[in-house]
């Protein structure tokens, strides 16, 4: 069964350092999402791509976060500099059709900022 791949699974970094997460969606899925999930809360959308274009990045803290999906396939989310409050689970999801109906999530990257 096709799955969304994410790496790394766990990342510990010191504040003010740069960190990057990678996601490879299910083959053929044009829509890709990055979410942040704080413990005890539901996922919060950071950015949504349709192919290589950003559809929604209204909740992305653009002073420190950036995301790209250059060839419309895999994607990278970067944080620079990391802050203590960035500690969370970062989830990548993909869907075959735009509009967020059925999303398939990867295993996530657990980020701890010290």
């Amino acid at each position: 069964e096709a799955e969304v791949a994410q790496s790394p699974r766990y990342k510990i970094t010191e504040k003010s350092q740069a960190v990057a997460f990678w996601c490879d969606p299910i083959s053929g899925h044009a829509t890709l999402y990055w979410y942040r999930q704080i413990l005890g809360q539901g996922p919060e959308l950071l950015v949504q791509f349709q192919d290589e274009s950003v559809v929604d990045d209204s909740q992305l803290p653009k002073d420190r976060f950036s995301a790209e999906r250059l060839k419309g396939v895999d994607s990278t989310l970067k944080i620079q500099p990391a802050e203590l409050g960035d500690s969370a689970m970062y989830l990548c999801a993909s869907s075959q059709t735009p509009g967020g109906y059925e999303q398939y999530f990867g295993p996530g990257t657990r980020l701890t900022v010290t």
Partner: protein
Amino acid sequence: TQLLEQSPQFLSIQEGENLTVYCNSSSVFSSLQWYRQEPGEGPVLLVTVVTGGEVKKLKRLTFQFGDARKDSSLHITAAQPGDTGLYLCAGSSWTNAGKSTFGDGTTLTVKP
């Protein structure tokens, strides 16, 4: 802003008991999804409901979408320890460019 409220926040029951969790909003959704998430993992899609009043069954799980498409419920019959996890609902709407909004989930613990 479309908000989804899930209740209860936490639920702890014994194996074999039945339970219902709820997902409510003041907004109308074109579709609603239920996911289950285990600790340290990503959410796994369980079901999508799109029609008001729709009922879907997945083994011991029964999902219902409200007639007005503003709320949904998940009923589990004869819960098992393997049902333990965080149950999330997510709604999307054409009026919000199809963007999904997630609730904060119900954490279910089923004790053997």
